[in-house]
């Protein structure tokens, strides 16, 4: 029996910059390798989230595209919160991450309201934060992961006191270049600046986030999680120079 995982992709026409499509492809592949069918539902401006959704995905966009969807997203506070309370997992990257906070204040002081789902706000800063970034995070208690990606943002994201970051910056800027925090976690919701895409570099995600359908899923969940993740990335420090173990399972030839 195939269990269906319902993914709502918010604003696929506007928020689709660099590798958001990769995230969707990875989610689909991971789901399928676990024997689940991924039902992808694009949700545009003015459209409602599909009922009973298991995953919500929100990508990044350029300023113009973000401005096009921001008013609509700001009206979804209750809708998204209800879905999260109902057990849905959420991944928001870059622009989507910023706009899930209370808002974005640009350099002239103009405020673009956000959905207010995540306990944070973002203010424009001097210069963009661009480059490879690696963070350490603990998605499952006691299990430290090094997650890497690429960041490219002008906004500085400030977490409310008590808010939980996704991880600590090892290298790169993270939320604001100062706090040492990257991203934000709220239950099964994750917001992050890491793209690259982020799913392949958050090993196993969203495996741990699929508990919502626990009755259906636990019955059919594969015994070995490694079989369904990028095994070489689990608990392994990714290195980005091609000499690392990131793709250690591929045949290698040539240089040592």
């Amino acid at each position, binding site marked *: 029996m195939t269990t269906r995982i319902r993914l709502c992709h918010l604003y696929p026409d506007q928020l689709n910059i660099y*590798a958001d499509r990769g995230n969707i*492809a990875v989610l689909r592949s991971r789901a399928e390798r676990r024997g689940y069918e991924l039902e992808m539902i694009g949700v545009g401006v003015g459209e409602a989230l599909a009922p009973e959704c298991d995953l919500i995905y929100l990508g990044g966009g350029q300023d113009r595209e973000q401005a096009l969807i921001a008013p609509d997203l700001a009206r979804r506070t209750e809708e998204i919160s209800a879905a999260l309370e109902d057990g849905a997992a959420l991944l928001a990257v870059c622009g989507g991450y910023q706009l899930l906070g209370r808002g974005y204040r640009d350099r002239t002081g103009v405020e673009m309201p956000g959905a207010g789902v995540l306990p944070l706000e973002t203010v424009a800063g001097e210069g963009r934060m661009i480059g490879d970034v690696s963070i350490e995070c603990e998605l499952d208690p006691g299990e430290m992961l090094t997650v890497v990606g*690429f960041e490219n943002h002008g906004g500085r994201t400030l977490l409310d006191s008590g808010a939980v970051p996704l991880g600590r910056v090892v290298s790169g800027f993270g939320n604001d270049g100062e706090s040492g925090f990257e991203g934000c976690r709220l239950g099964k919701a994750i917001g992050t600046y890491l793209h690259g895409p982020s799913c392949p570099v958050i090993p196993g995600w969203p495996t741990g986030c699929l508990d919502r359908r626990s009755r259906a899923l636990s019955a059919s969940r594969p015994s070995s999680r490694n079989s369904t993740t990028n095994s070489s990335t689990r608990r392994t420090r990714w290195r980005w120079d091609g000499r690392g173990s990131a793709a250690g399972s591929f045949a290698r030839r040539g240089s040592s």
Partner: protein
Amino acid sequence: MRIPLVISTLVARSAGAGSRLSRKGGGTTLPGRVLNALDPGASARLARRLEQGSAIISATNGKTTSAAMTAAILASRYRLAGNPAGANLSSGVATALLHTRGAELGLFEVDEAALPRVAEALKPRALCLGNLFRDQLDRYGELELLAERWRGVVAGLAVGSTLIVNEDDPQLAQLARGRAGVIRFGIEDARHGGPLPHAADARYCSACGVAYDYRLAYVGHLGEYSCPGCGFERSKPDIWAEAITLEGLAGSSFQLHLPQETLSVRLGLPGLYNVYNALAAAALGHALGARADEIAGGLESTEAAFGRSERIAIGEKELLLLLIKNPTGANEVVRTIVASGTPKTLVIALNDRIADGQDVSWIWDVDFEPLLDGLERLIASGGRAAELALRFKYAGFPESQIELVPRPAEALDRGLALTEDGGELVVCPTYTAMLELQKVLAERGHADPYWQRAARAREESGLPRSPK
């Protein structure tokens, strides 16, 4: 105190000679960097010596090829100064200007982000804008920002200068609206159009923000669009291609409509994207006074520019180099490869240096999937070979058929070893990986170093050898 031009140019040229002598490189940018540092106004003064003025080509994709085609069109008419080795930042243009002795017309390809500065110095009589795709957001910032800067460049063009735009790119068509002295080019052949691809950039009207209706798209977001919000729409171009026949990797042929006449053109470069490059060159050549026969002759005689679908014989085998650098360009390369029959072995080399774009996530926006049907082995190379392998894994390509060979030279050897005599090896490198391969090929005597080829290109375009 300003350093006299004669001194600063002498010092700068010596730096270039030193660079070539020390075999560190071709000296295609160093002299210009020295010149810009000694005297930031030197480029503008050198440019004023060109009695026929200057022309500039900028685009995200295809500017090197368009510039090569334009040079071929104009070669019999003018002695040209230019930057055929693709050194297209302000330093590369300044270096080329150091070699202007005897040249009448400057013809420069210019990096998208460097355009404002270079246009300010050169005050071009003709500016050709080919396309604007998202590429290297890590370096350029957002596409909108770039379009905004280009708007400034267009506004600053001298009265009487000609603006040439690709009418199929709505952002560029918008830039040209209402301006006098515009030549618009485009494709008029619905058979080659399709739906707007997922990686398309300009989905929303830059005037009113409403999503464009695309009747069809040819390459990325280049196509026939109209805005249901404000009514802005593509208009019939002044110069266009129709009745296009694509002949896989061998090239294409099409009918080229110029304002006064129509001619048949056979292009030796593959793909619809090269038809766009040819249209840009034809329109710019037309703006600079070339006759129809010069345009056709120039287009037909143009060979691949430096690593863009370049063929190199290696013993009994042939190497085909196809540069990839952003989703739209790579998608067109994939489309062209598939049209000719997917090879069994493919080498892709992904680097992440500044010239490649440090953010390699763009590979996830490329449709590599059509290659999987027929591909037996992928040799993933370059500094980010591992991510390329991961991309193909998630595309559904079996891991057991992927080899990781990070060093491009070794990947080339491995690919050649898997290629039978008489066969062709297709290699798709990013920019700096291509430079690495070119260097290896030159060392092995299969190809000339790029600076020698640049010098030869200068010579062929009628320009005397650079001074000692």
